[in-house]
């Protein structure tokens, strides 16, 4: 791994993307300079905060189809994060709406339930908050509070059905083993509407890209809610409760909320008020991974702009590129379809025949017709930044 000093030197010298992309620098993030640091078992990632640990995936690590486990972003709200012994781990399934409460071991999950896999983007609700204008308080993420992985586990609904869902169940509540330092701090619990909890794509995942979940990504089991932002993907799962009343916890009632009616996406009605509603689905979005603003291209060289496009589960229909200030748009070539919850690679041959500045914009369109907006819908927590991205390159 190159040191930060080396990366900066590469950046200062001007570069074409050949694996020497600087993960650092204000150009990439619009924010403060970045320090790379490795958590135990992880590769060096962009450190946004030591404790609770918040580490972002550098841009060059978002190039592969599947984000490597050791490069996948890390996000916690609470600083007490126990290392869990997989052999003694237990998952309690109960609640007022459960007819036959269960206690499950990892062996039970493997033996008694069908194993399934789903490729899905896990994107933090606050991804790109550091790029937000006006700026918003919170972890100042750049583009890398996200990744794409193949998640393996069992269907949540199979477990809920075995526990027996009582009539009148409205939400399912999830708790993980991570804890606050102070007893007075709200523990991190999240809920899903019962209908989403019963979706066949929602998993209790024990594997990520064919390997056991890394500690920092929720070992030994986490919730995977394809299409929904990362806040619902509760790590280190210990307890699942089927509830007949809406959950009242801080992380549902007060945090992770957006203004009601301002954004598209699934409406979590049992948690909605006239003013605010929970953030739910990921909005259609794209990211250029091949270049950042300031990159220099040789005149006449064969260069492709490349990146990823994703949404909340409709799937990507098209990615378009504009090289003329967004007056006209050309269709990019899409890569392999990894599934409707995964991201989709795009590539576009850049015209390098003329010297000078080259402004390129990218916008994705999903199969349900949604496209990326030109302007940000400002909200206090800095969520849902999916505006059309642009880079300025230089042909010399």
């Amino acid at each position: 791994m190159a040191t930060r000093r080396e990366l900066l030197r590469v950046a200062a010298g001007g570069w074409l993307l050949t694996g020497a992309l600087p993960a650092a620098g204000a150009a990439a993030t619009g924010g403060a300079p970045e320090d790379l640091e490795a958590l135990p078992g992880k590769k060096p990632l962009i450190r946004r905060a030591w404790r609770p640990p918040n580490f972002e995936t550098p841009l060059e690590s978002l190039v592969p189809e599947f984000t490597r486990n050791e490069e996948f972003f890390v996000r916690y709200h609470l600083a007490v994060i126990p290392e869990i012994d997989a052999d003694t781990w237990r998952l309690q399934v109960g609640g007022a709406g459960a007819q036959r409460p269960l206690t499950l071991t990892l062996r039970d999950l493997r033996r008694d339930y069908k194993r399934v896999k789903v490729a899905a983007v896990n994107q933090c609700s606050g991804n790109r908050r550091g790029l937000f204008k006006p700026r918003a308080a919170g972890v100042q993420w750049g583009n890398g509070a996200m990744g794409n992985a193949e998640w393996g586990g069992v269907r949540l609904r199979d477990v809920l059905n075995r526990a027996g869902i009582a009539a009148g169940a409205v939400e399912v509540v999830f708790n993980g083993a991570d804890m606050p330092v102070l007893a007075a701090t709200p523990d991190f619990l999240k809920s899903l509407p019962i209908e989403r909890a019963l979706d066949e794509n929602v998993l209790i995942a024990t594997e990520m890209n064919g390997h056991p979940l890394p500690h920092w990504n929720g070992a030994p089991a986490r919730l995977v809610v394809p299409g929904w932002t990362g806040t619902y993907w509760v790590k280190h799962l210990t307890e699942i409760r089927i509830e007949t009343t809406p959950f009242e916890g801080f992380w549902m009632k007060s945090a992770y909320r957006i203004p009601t009616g301002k954004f598209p996406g699934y409406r979590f009605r049992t948690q909605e008020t006239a003013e605010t509603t929970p953030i739910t689905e990921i909005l259609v979005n794209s990211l250029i991974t091949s270049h950042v603003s300031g990159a220099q291209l040789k005149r006449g060289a064969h260069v492709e702009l490349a990146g990823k496009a994703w949404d909340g589960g409709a799937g990507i229909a098209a990615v378009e590129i504009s090289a003329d200030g967004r007056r006209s748009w050309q269709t990019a070539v899409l890569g392999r379809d990894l599934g409707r919850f995964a991201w989709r690679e795009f590539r576009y041959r850049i015209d390098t025949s003329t010297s000078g500045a080259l402004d390129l914009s990218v916008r994705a369109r999903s199969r349900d017709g949604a496209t990326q907006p030109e302007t940000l819908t400002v909200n206090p927590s800095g969520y849902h930044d999916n505006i059309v991205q642009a880079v300025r390159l230089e042909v010399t």
Partner: protein
Amino acid sequence: MKGRMAAACLVLAAAALAARAGEETLRLKDAPGRDLTQGRCAVCHSLDYIPANAPVMDRAGWGKTVQKMRDRFGAPMTDAEAQQILDYLAANYADKS
């Protein structure tokens, strides 16, 4: 009560174990109120959250944050301490432009 104190100490011990190598290298700006701010804030989180949010913050922003930490997250501090911490943050880490 005794049990609760013991439990609180245990939780704090766990937190100390969870402190990340490296975070002790960050010292906040030397100004009145620094030691109190470091002492209270670092109970639950590393201090890098403070400079990281400085570009977003003005005095009103820090006021809301200090209040949130007390009211929502249970950060133990007196009114006088909260005022000192707010004064320190507003004077040293409020770079909102």
